[in-house]
């Protein structure tokens, strides 16, 4: 197969990925629709069950134990579809790599695809580990589908070689770390937004008001403390990775441009993102800042990340404008 047809196959598979993810999203949504009817059935999440089994110790479980409905075929099918879409997604990136004879993250199109892959991977791991309900799936897959759709239409770039400044083994390390952190950060941003939605929903219920759309979606979501914790765990994983990505970028910049830091727009926005996430971690440890305020910080930080990737690459002139 020629490089060109290999690249085209990869592009086609990415479109297929988007379709499969969209179907999975419908599956999750279908499960939620059927779940409404069976809301009454609740039991404690599997991993916590050991704690309350006969003869086991009495453990004051955190109040926000996840509730699992009777398994729905639609939901399990959605997870299977997500996993299948994930495999297609991985294949698409690998083919890109072969087509271009390099790592498949050399331009914004490939980059976005890889970032979305990380977010989906992380989500699947969280579901498999029982740390979050798969009900979250509809809300996670929607932005993933939109993001990938946008990436493969607006940012499309055919497979090709790299400009010399990007042609270093540090690109593999720096960019791989940046992708890993970014995918996680974007996932945590979505979860933080859902947390805010769920909090608003809870507050309206407490105030005996009837939540309207979109706040009424809160009923479909995991409880606020679960969402808060998931968002935190994802950021706690991603923050050291992001720190490392920035440092690796500095090492690369040192060998490519003769300075490890120069306040290039891209560097500046990476720094802003980093400081905001440091702020988030601080906020969670500061009295009066836990909960909703911290969640807003996580959303703002994810916003800075998006500016870093898209606004800076497209609109601001700097050394990093390689797309």
């Amino acid at each position: 197969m020629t490089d060109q047809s290999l690249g085209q196959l990869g592009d086609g598979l990415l479109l297929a990925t988007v379709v499969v993810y969209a179907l999975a999203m419908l599956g999750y949504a279908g499960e939620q629709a059927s779940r409404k009817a069976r809301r009454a059935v609740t039991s404690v999440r599997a991993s916590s069950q050991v704690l309350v089994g006969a003869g086991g110790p009495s453990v004051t479980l955190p109040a926000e134990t996840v509730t699992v409905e009777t398994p729905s075929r639609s939901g399990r099918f959605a997870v299977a579809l997500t996993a299948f879409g994930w495999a297609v997604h991985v294949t698409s990136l690998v083919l890109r790599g072969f087509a271009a004879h390099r790592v498949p993250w050399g331009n914004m199109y490939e980059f976005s695809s890889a970032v979305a892959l990380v977010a989906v991977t992380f989500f699947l791991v969280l579901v498999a580990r029982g740390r979050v309900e798969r009900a979250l799936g509809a809300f996670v897959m929607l932005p993933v589908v939109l993001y990938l759709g946008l990436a493969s239409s607006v940012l499309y770039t055919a497979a090709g070689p790299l400009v010399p400044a990007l042609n270093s083994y540090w690109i593999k390390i720096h960019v791989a770390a940046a992708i890993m952190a970014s995918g996680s950060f974007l996932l945590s941003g979505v979860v933080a937004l859902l947390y805010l939605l769920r909090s608003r929903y809870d507050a309206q219920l407490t105030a005996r008001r009837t939540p309207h759309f979109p706040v009424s979606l809160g009923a479909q979501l995991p409880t606020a403390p679960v969402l808060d914790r998931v968002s935190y765990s994802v950021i706690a994983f991603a923050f050291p990775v992001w720190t490392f990505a920035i440092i690796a970028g500095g090492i690369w910049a040192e060998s490519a441009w003769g300075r490890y830091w120069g306040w290039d727009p891209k560097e500046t926005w990476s720094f802003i993102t980093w400081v905001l996430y440091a702020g988030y971690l601080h906020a969670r440890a500061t009295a009066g800042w836990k909960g909703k305020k911290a969640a807003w910080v996580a959303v703002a930080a994810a916003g800075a990340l998006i500016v870093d990737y898209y606004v800076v690459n497209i609109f601001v002139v700097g050394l990093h404008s390689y797309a």
Partner: protein
Amino acid sequence: MTVRSEVPGDVKADEEAVRLTTQPKPVGLPRKGDLFGPLRIGWRQLTSMRTALLLLFLLALASVPGGFLPQRRINPLRVNQYIAQHPTAGPLMDRLRLFDVFSSPWFSAIYLLLFVSLVGCLIPRSRLHLKALTSKPPKVPRSIAKLPVNDRWETTDGVDDVLQQASTALRGWRVVRREHEISAEKGYLRETGNLVFHLSLILLLVGIALGAFRGFKATVLVKEGKGFSNTIISFDDVQPGRRFSASSLVPFSVHLDAFRATYGPDGKALTFDAAVHWAPLGGAEKTDDIRVNHPLDVGGAKTYLIGHGYAPHIIVKDTTGAVIDDQLVACLPQNAQFLSTCVIKEANTTGTQFGFRGVFTPTTVTDSTGHVGSSYPGLRNPVLTVAAFVGDLGVDPGTPQSVYNLDTSAMTPVDGGQAHALLPGQVFHLPGGASLTYVDTKQWATFQVTQDPGKGLALVASIGMVGGLMLSLFIRRRRLWVRVRAGGTDGAPTTVEVGGLARTDPERYALEFAALVRQLRPKALSTVVEE
């Protein structure tokens, strides 16, 4: 207000037991009669979590203009352009230092305050943590049942047996036994990591400062066949740090033998390669290739390839036919296809002086109106298009003049300013017998030499940051307590109470706790279920 002394000792001990961090406590009010009270409070305020948080947000906010507006240190030309395009707002923004954000007083104030806060926060935290590292886990809280995870059961085992079993089960924990109680703790490295991280931030700042004060950066344009030495005078542009001393310049010299760039079919650059030979002062010559991502490193002074362009080889003869100039002219690229502008001055002629203004195009295309352009950055069809001027170049030995600008105010254009397109080898004949020959095309490269004595420290600090963060975010600090009550002489069973507390991820700890309890209680008589 002396809240603390009113707290009964055991309540205070309980507070201590559930405290798993060296995080500063929220600031209270000054004690009455404390002269330094307001100062002390001010300092406590500055080093509080809330202030640190605020300063972090301010730091992020203050960086935003630097992320959108052109910055003078990176691109002075675009700053001037921006100011010219915004005649009212531009100068005002300039006065607010919005084009020099990262060296502005307000940006410096924020990060300096943040680091003062950091130092002030780190000292007491390190002391507290050192104390925690060298002391025993705190006493068992009075009410184990109030801990987030807890359990209680009865057993026929003796008190010592139970305590023995507990000690065995708690391998890997720091365990202390006080009479019929056990306190255990694990995950001290979390706090250690956190402190290492924050300490590394300070080290990083020191490293950056060292580079800024003691460092050196300079650029030089070198044509093929020429060279430079690492001395102040041989550079075109020098940016020394404020405390830089020329004696710290590493002595060496570099000679550019050849420069080569390759391009893909779409004109995107593929590789840049400067073949050089270089020598340390008095040392033997070596050859090397300086490429992007591959600088030349001589004793800590690094030479980078940062730019390149074309340098047509020209020969100029005067009216007598004598060669008055034979040189490579560095033409400055104006676009990605390397359409470049060139200036040639012949000041050393007797009588009238010559000046040439030219456009060099490596792959030349001519549009219908006769304008030349370049369609590809590589050398496929090079043309040097020149217009000649005669008269006074305005060269005054006293004031240096840019070699890239031609002042034609006192000159008259030859042929009415008509430009002549020359292929390699072609000659432009001037009136009176003088001539300019475009021989062939060579190239030039710009090099940047940097010396940054703070770089190593910054790297060490960075490693400390990542390592510290990983410890601090992935390790869970947790405590576990066991209290055993003897059943008395009448054969009543022994009561065991176990409780625990974790600072993060209570779910994971609940699982770990349950596993530990299962090891301890196989011989339990009955379960006393707590509400």
